[in-house]
């Protein structure tokens, strides 16, 4: 298959910056999650309230290091307080600062990428699937080819198959905005100015849980993406997205 067009330079630069930022954010985000590997739904959640999910990813998993709870109000069945007696794993000193520093390298290049994609008609030309491409038979055909691992050889640039387009569109227009907005919702200064974020996601802890789910989906995408790159010709694809080879 001959390439129709190599990756544009701004696409290659955006891909590098956003790709590296995403991996550093995933790593630092995971370190942050290790300090409190419990997820909740709603406005608040902590060691003294039930969790939605508990993740066995650090020694903090289900640690019971608390004194006997005592009531915080006149109501013995109401809010309780307990003192922590357990020395938790917590590397958030650098973890948080690295996460937020890197977030700038996702947010600003991400915004530039979205604006360039619109200005250059990149999304309408290459990413957004057409009505014909979205036909049931076409999707079925592409799906069957993927299941049999019949991946077309690398072209070193667009154009893309329908499943490829749909997954790129989901990352660009759903997962990335979602992970960014839920991340901003975790900032007390940002939600003071924009309380609508808390309303939109149903509270701080709901936003934190959605932030985690979006991270998992993005990492799943990265894995499949790398697998497809490997199956279609790793060297040519890598040259295509970095130096712009492939012609």
């Amino acid at each position: 298959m001959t390439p129709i067009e190599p990756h544009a330079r701004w696409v290659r630069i955006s891909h590098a910056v956003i790709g590296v930022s995403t991996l550093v954010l995933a790593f630092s985000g995971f370190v942050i999650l290790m300090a409190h590997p419990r997820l909740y739904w709603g406005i608040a959640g902590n060691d003294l309230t039930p969790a939605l999910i508990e993740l066995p990813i650090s020694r903090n998993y289900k640690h019971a290091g608390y004194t006997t709870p005592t009531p915080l109000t006149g109501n013995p069945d109401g809010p309780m307080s307990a003192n922590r007696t357990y020395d938790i794993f917590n590397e958030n000193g650098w973890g948080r600062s690295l996460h937020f520093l890197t977030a700038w390298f996702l947010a600003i290049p991400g915004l530039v990428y979205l604006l360039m994609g619109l200005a250059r008609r990149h999304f309408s030309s290459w990413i957004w699937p057409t009505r014909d491409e979205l036909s049931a038979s076409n999707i079925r055909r592409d799906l069957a080819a993927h299941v049999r691992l019949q991946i077309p050889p690398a072209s070193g640039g667009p154009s893309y198959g329908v499943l490829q387009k749909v997954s790129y569109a989901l990352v660009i227009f759903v997962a990335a905005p979602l992970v960014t907005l839920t991340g901003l919702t975790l900032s007390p200064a940002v939600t003071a100015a924009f309380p609508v974020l808390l309303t939109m996601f149903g509270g701080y802890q709901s936003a934190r849980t959605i932030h985690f789910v979006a991270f998992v989906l993005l990492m799943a995408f990265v894995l499949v993406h790398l697998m497809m790159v490997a199956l279609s010709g790793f060297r040519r694809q890598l040259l295509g997205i970095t130096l712009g080879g492939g012609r």
Partner: protein
Amino acid sequence: MKSNGLITRRRAIIAGLASLGGLALWKTPRELPPTYGNILRMGDTFTYAAQRALLGDALVKEYTLADLTSFPATGTVDPAVMDRSGSADYRRLKDQGFAGWQLSVEGRVARPRTFSLNELKALPSRTQITRHTCEEGWTAIGQWTGVPLSVVLDAVGLLPSARFVLFRSFDDWTDSIDLLDALHPQTLLAYGMNGRDLPLAHGAPLRLRVERQIGYKSMKYLRRIIVTDEFDDGGKDGNIQNGWAWYTGI
């Protein structure tokens, strides 16, 4: 032709970003915390300047009594049982039910003085139900009653050169906030929690509430307030030298 178009668009984007940067600089606090050449501290300072420039001085969301949740006590839960320089004093004051406790307010103020707990309680008070957001990832809803820090700073009179408000606690912790947070209406010196006296484990008799920042900025066991005109990192008792961000609006 194509390359001309490219340059024009790029120039337009650069001009746009530059003017955004100019706006941020224009509204940026005059005193920025030092970065010590550490890239993480540079990121913290950039976030601080950006949030100060873009976010204004809105109040955080307040909740209702029905939203109150359980509230873990982490970090120091009793300075009396520790081996810190303030521990002996705290032990003595705690045994007297904090009757002899006093808060010293000093530094770049016109009338430095001390406040007893009753003197603080006689000042105008504010009660608010807010979300405590711990850096670890958990949150808890609590009701806080106290005197707005701005009321206390008004009483002692800030000097024009004042830029930061530094706090020292009985467990030897030191931290500071800028005047935008210090004068924010929801920044309290809290002596009450959930309608009762502030419990021992949550910072008795007086703690800080800085609602637009992460929980560790809301220092417990307050002892001294020092208004400064220059940034003071608190040395080995402060956040930065312990590897933690000074500004935690995020």
